[in-house]
């Protein structure tokens, strides 16, 4: 059964917390990964790979640059989840 956007957000926040130490509640839909959450490109790659494992999606490297905000990642995962 497909996960809701809220469930995806919660899962993504866990991954971000694990990788960066940021509190999960900081990870909100309107936040920019680089500007607001201070996540660099190396951390972003780890987050993407872990999100692929967690949500059963494939996020191509070309797509990652379009995922500037948390809501972009949540929406990508919601529409591509298996």
């Amino acid at each position, binding site marked *: 059964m497909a996960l809701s956007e809220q469930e995806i957000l919660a899962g993504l926040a866990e991954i971000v917390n*694990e990788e*960066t*130490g940021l509190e999960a509640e900081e990870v909100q839909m309107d936040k920019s990964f680089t500007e607001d959450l201070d996540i660099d490109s*190396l*951390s972003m*790659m780890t987050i993407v790979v872990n999100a692929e494992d967690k949500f059963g999606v494939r996020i191509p490297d070309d797509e990652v640059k379009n995922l500037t905000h948390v809501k972009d990642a949540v929406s990508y995962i919601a529409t591509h989840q298996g």
Partner: protein
Amino acid sequence: MTDTTQTSRRVVVTGLGATTPVGGTAPQTWEAIVAGRSGVRTLEQDWVAEHELPVTFAAPIHTDPLEVLKKVEVRRNDPSGQYALIAAREAWADAGAPEVEPERLGVAIGSGIGGVHTLLSQWDTLKEKGPRRVFPLTVPMLMPNGPAAAVSLDLGARAGAHCPVSACASGAEGMGQALTMIRAGRADVVVAGGTEAAIHPVCIAAFAAMTALSGRNDDPQAASRPYDVDRDGFVMGEGAGVMVLESEEHARARGARIYAYLDGLGMSSDAYHITAGEPEGAGAARAMEEAISDAGLATTDIAHINAHATSTPVGDVAETRAIHRAFGGHTGNIAVTATKSMTGHLLGAAGALEALLTVLALYHRQVPPTLNLDQQDPEIDLDVVTGSARALPEGQLAAVNNAFGFGGVNVALTFTSAS
């Protein structure tokens, strides 16, 4: 123009930090060493039996980094980097977090092997899960200068972040590099030391293959026994030792506590054999002589030596010959100790940890004992401190710390007491 002669820029030790097999901090480590407690134990990891390792014990870190660092710091640093960060932060706080211009603050933290856990775990990841799953921070985590870089980032040190790599002399060379930087006027404060995290099945198998390790699996705490007739090799340890070194002028101006002076550095290379030290100890003796003359002292001024003494049959005798060669008739007046009997051999961190123990011996005027010395090898005619710690006399004191490494590297440091 700044006067950069050594007499005008003496270097002092103002902060100490360590995470070792016997303690999670420098004071804990010192307390354990003076009490003669061993950090050697049987390894509990599954890989020991899985790979049928011929040696089943080591001296692992006393305090889990997860108890000290943030989870994310543990995740993003190889264990060698974690240990360096822990020790550097302790040393920095112990020094009173000196106010210093970032461009005048340096780092020199050596490592013998680098991020071997990271390299090999990511090799497993590559084989099992493919290239996309290899951790993007693999390279900065496996590079030997990763720990120095992590400390430099942590403290905002911009005068240079160096990592001498000289096997088991790396940590001592870190101290030497710091001394050179401060004397040359390149920095006022340098966070210096060594770190190592090589308790990995490959390293154990490799050192065992060259018969360098003790095989005393049935009695691990008796395995590291420098100078004893029954010694049969070293015990692998891990951890980090870090000092804050500072120009005396800078330390005095801020009213810092001074543990001791780092007054002399001696370095040589044997050009004899890739792993074996030159058996007559000529190169090692030259390093000690240089370290003492660099301090403006005579060999007769030296009251204490923290020896390299790894507990190998050949190495301990060669160092003894070197000490006789350097000190001649004064040899019998020197209180010698071999603290690897308790900590095991921290490889690239050994020289740093033992330098720190030398400083504390001068500061507390107490030489820690050598453990497991039941019957001294007759070829080793040194005054070795055993049983319990031995008091050093009042007044001005000087001590030498030796660190030798594969590749024929010899490093000696001379410390003198603060008063």
